[in-house]
């Protein structure tokens, strides 16, 4: 009987197809990525069955964390510059062009106006470590109200309608939440959104 010779096959695998797929996926993820804006506080939002998606633009976000601090954030660099100038006028403060530029890059602020220049001097690393007191909301020094009001007054060409979203932590205490809602109502905002996460199946 003749011996069956097993033909020697090359062990080399053609990597081209795999490379193609890898880079296709890479391109997809690179284009689809939108980096999360760094937030000064971690907020664990409550869940709901609501399926309305939050638009990405024209959003004012009020974050309430576990300890009852309130943070203010608005999108759009131009808008932020404009709002800072309006706020500076109210509180008789002067900001240098560099400070205004720096402010326009901040997605969220959680300091009273008096500490704002100091906050703008900080580096990104310092900010990550810093423990911010939050924007004051009490009726004597209602800075949150002014931020909201000035944001609503600020006219920006491309802005259609400013939506206001409250992003609260599950364990945020009710008096703070009520206070924020009361401030919104004082500023004639009766329609707003609560940011929630997807409901887990029960």
């Amino acid at each position, binding site marked *: 009987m003749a011996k069956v010779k097993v033909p*020697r096959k*090359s*062990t*080399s*695998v053609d*990597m*081209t197809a*795999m*490379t193609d797929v*890898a*880079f296709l*996926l*890479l391109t997809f*993820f*690179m284009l*689809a*990525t*939108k*980096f*999360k804006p760094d937030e000064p506080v971690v907020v664990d*939002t*409550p*869940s*709901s*069955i*609501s*399926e*309305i*998606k*939050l638009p*990405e633009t024209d959003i004012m976000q009020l974050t*309430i964390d576990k300890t009852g601090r309130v943070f203010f954030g608005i999108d759009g660099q131009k808008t932020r510059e404009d709002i800072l100038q309006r706020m500076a006028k109210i509180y008789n403060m002067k900001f240098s062009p560099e400070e205004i530029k720096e402010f326009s890059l901040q997605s969220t602020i959680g300091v009273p106006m008096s500490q704002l220049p100091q906050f703008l001097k900080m580096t990104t690393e310092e900010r990550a470590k810093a423990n911010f007191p939050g924007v004051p909301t009490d009726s004597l020094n209602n800075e949150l109200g002014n931020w909201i009001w000035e944001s609503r007054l600020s006219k920006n060409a491309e802005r259609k309608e400013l939506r206001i*979203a409250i*992003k*609260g*932590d*599950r*364990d*945020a*205490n*009710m*008096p703070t*939440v*009520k206070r924020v*809602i009361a401030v*919104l*109502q*004082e500023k004639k905002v*009766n*329609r*707003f*959104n*609560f*940011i*929630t*996460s*997807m*409901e887990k199946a*029960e």
Partner: protein
Amino acid sequence: MAEIEGGGGGGKHKGGKKRGKKLSTRVDFTPMVDLGFLLITFFMLTTSMNKPQTMEINMPDKNVIEEKDKTLVKESQAITLLLAKDDKVVTYFLKDGEPSTPQIQNFGAKGIRTTLLEENRKRNPLLDSIPVYKGMLNKGIITEEEYKARLFDIKSFKNALIVVIKAADNSKYENLVDILDEMLICNIGRYAVVDISDSEVEMLKTVNLN
């Protein structure tokens, strides 16, 4: 490496003639693929695909409403939910201006949802037709607009349950969102978030939830 040299290349030629080495034209792709997948992993982990969800809420206007513009509702039509501490809800009805005995309930499907659905069904006979319409929508018998219009009609039925939500200071934000969620689940069209009154704080004391 994915490739193993299969002989060839440069061997000694017997003829003594010197020839240039034949170099393989193949390039090893392995490191490139490695890099590709590394970057994919990086972008996959950093990317945030899902947009946050929101819940819309309308608050009543702070301005004082004139007496003639006020709509009066039957006492028996409105249920009051007090959000108390430890994730409890206290419910009561008004009868002849006096609150009924407060009932303590939990959140979730077995607690407050059962009560709300039951009370709403008593007052809104059309409520049970919602799942029917939903089924028709899924089968494509009615359009999304039609479904929404019908849902709206059912929800705003004049005798339907009206819910008054009052949050005590020691409740949590999660409770508020949960209860608003129940409004959606139970198809309650008319509800309002109102400040808690002193008498209700007293009431919470009587059930040891202050």
